[in-house]
């Protein structure tokens, strides 16, 4: 049975309204302030350390993103931590909010499909995050220009733009998750709590649990331990388990793109390094190829989670 008309009729209307809501909301302002101040602190430290360390670096601008000065993590690490918070903040009441305000049945009685509402909301939240990240990106480039006094090279700009795109995909995963939970739970508070729980689990607990789990799944061969080495089988397992967390995928992709000397992600095997000049940067294209699987992983995660919320939302009763 084919449905009449386009399932996306009305998407742009929903998009524009939701975008305006987000941009003018106090919630968004708070999230943005949080991110800007934390990022500024990280950038301040980064600039300080880069100014002292004047050794010539062809990728000075990129160092701004990745350098970490204890106790502050790097700019990228901070974003890896805060982007999920922002996405959750924009998505946790997307669907249940309409239920609870009792607007859902009134909106769905207009000549649109549910697809348009869900899609419009998703795209609007993603665009809001995109705008914030783009503003942050400009901030980094601007601060680099002012305080480091070096104009960014073409490749640096290209790499930092890839960073921007991957960061948006990364936000997409968390946004889909938050929207899925907003469809599952009728209470926005529950959806927010569960989203935040998943976020804390994946960012803080999972990096500790994954290696432990790997030890169980593939117990290291004691002969490696005698030589003071890690069993590669265990290391691979740990790596793959870690990759179940979007944070890890984001960090790996960023490592490949923003640190051009990165030649491989994950446990390094000697044959991968054969012929490699240690410390020499990879060409842009190859760095992107290195980050490709992780990026695809993020996009796939977004699509799968979104598809779940789509199916759930289609079958959900409209009445409150």
């Amino acid at each position, binding site marked *: 049975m084919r449905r009449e008309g386009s399932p996306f009729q009305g998407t742009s209307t929903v998009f524009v309204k939701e975008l305006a*809501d987000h941009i003018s909301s106090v919630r968004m302002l708070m999230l943005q302030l949080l991110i800007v101040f934390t990022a500024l602190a990280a950038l301040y430290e980064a600039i300080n350390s880069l100014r002292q360390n004047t050794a010539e670096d062809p990728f000075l601008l990129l160092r701004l993103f990745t350098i970490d000065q204890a106790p502050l993590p790097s700019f990228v690490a901070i974003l890896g931590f805060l982007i999920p918070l922002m996405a959750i903040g924009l998505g946790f009441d997307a669907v249940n909010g309409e239920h609870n305000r*009792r607007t859902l*049945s*009134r909106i769905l009685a207009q*000549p649109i499909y549910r697809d348009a509402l869900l899609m419009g909301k998703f795209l609007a939240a993603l665009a809001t995050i995109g705008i914030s990240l783009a503003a942050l990106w400009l901030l980094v480039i601007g601060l680099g220009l002012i305080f480091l006094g070096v104009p960014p090279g073409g490749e640096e700009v290209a790499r930092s733009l890839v960073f921007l795109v991957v960061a948006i995909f990364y936000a997409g995963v968390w946004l889909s998750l938050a929207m899925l939970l907003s469809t599952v739970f009728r209470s926005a508070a529950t959806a927010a709590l569960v989203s935040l729980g998943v976020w804390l689990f994946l960012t803080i607990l999972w990096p500790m649990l994954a290696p432990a789990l790997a030890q169980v799944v593939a117990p290291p061969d004691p002969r490696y331990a005698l030589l003071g080495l890690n069993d590669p089988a265990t290391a691979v397992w740990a790596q793959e388990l870690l990759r179940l967390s979007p944070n890890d995928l984001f960090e790996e992709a960023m490592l490949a793109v923003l640190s051009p000397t990165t030649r491989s992600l994950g446990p390094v095997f000697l044959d991968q390094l054969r012929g490699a000049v240690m410390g020499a940067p990879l060409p842009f294209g190859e760095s992107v190829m290195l980050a490709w699987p992780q990026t695809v992983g993020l996009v796939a995660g977004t699509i799968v989670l979104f598809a779940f919320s789509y199916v759930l939302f289609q079958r959900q009763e*409209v009445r409150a």
Partner: protein
Amino acid sequence: MNEQTQTMTSPVIHARGLTRRYGDTAVVDGIDLDIVRGEVFGLLGPNGAGKTTTILMMLGLTEISSGEISMLGFNPAREPLKVKRRVGYLPDAVGFYDQLTAAENLAYTGKLMGLARAERAGRIEQALRRVGLIDVASKRVATFSRGMRQRLGLAEIIMKRAEIAILDEPTSGLDPQATQEFLGLIGELKAEGITVLLSSHMLDQVQRICDRVALFKAGHIVLVGAVPELAIKVLGAGFVVEVEAEGLGIARRLAMIPGVTHVETLSADRFRMTAERDVRADAARAVVAVDGALRRLSVDEPSLEAIYARYFQDQPAGGVRHAA
């Protein structure tokens, strides 16, 4: 829609065996409905009887388990956009975006309806004027009372220029004055030829404005028809006339009037007659005929409440009828 082929009597809402099951329980169980253009039709019944579920099926907003329904000739399950373009819906306890103004809320749904910008502005103003909200058009809905929200919901239907307006419990939670105002607005819709389907569990409030009603009970329609018809069917009479008069043998005289089914003597000079029609004129003549002194003559409209109470009381008791 072809106006010529849509005669006044062809139903705009047509349902046969319409059923909605949740698991094993049928909350709407095989209902048949035919609602004609321009009529005000009431779905009445207690909470949980299945009124809202029926309405949601009409709009394609919940699945139909079996049976069929056609809205203005379209199947809401297969052509929901066509139905939703022509049918306005005011949900039970309607909500709006509180941070937006009344006009902005309407602008959003107006866009979703596909109205062009210029057209939209005109229609919003017109609709807000009709429901008396034009002065608060640029106020946030957060400040609106329940009655104002209901009227804003009605403005949305007016803006849509809907052929059918479906109002779910439109007067519940309103104070008596707001209820009267709202019923007045529904009357205006009817005057424009819009078909109105409204649901309510407050029978007395809506019986005046409904041309016909369907009484729901546990997913079934147990009675359909105009209120006076139902009164005759259930109460054995549509009208209750009270006579206050002095004279000999008045009660006997009154009982002889054709159409009168029962005369009750309330006191020496007060009588209550139940009749199939308005028998006031005959009652007056009867009093005069026995040289009585007529002091008061009053008629009660048949009350849905009474019909409803009687019908459901009587069902288990096996249809014992008492005089009203």
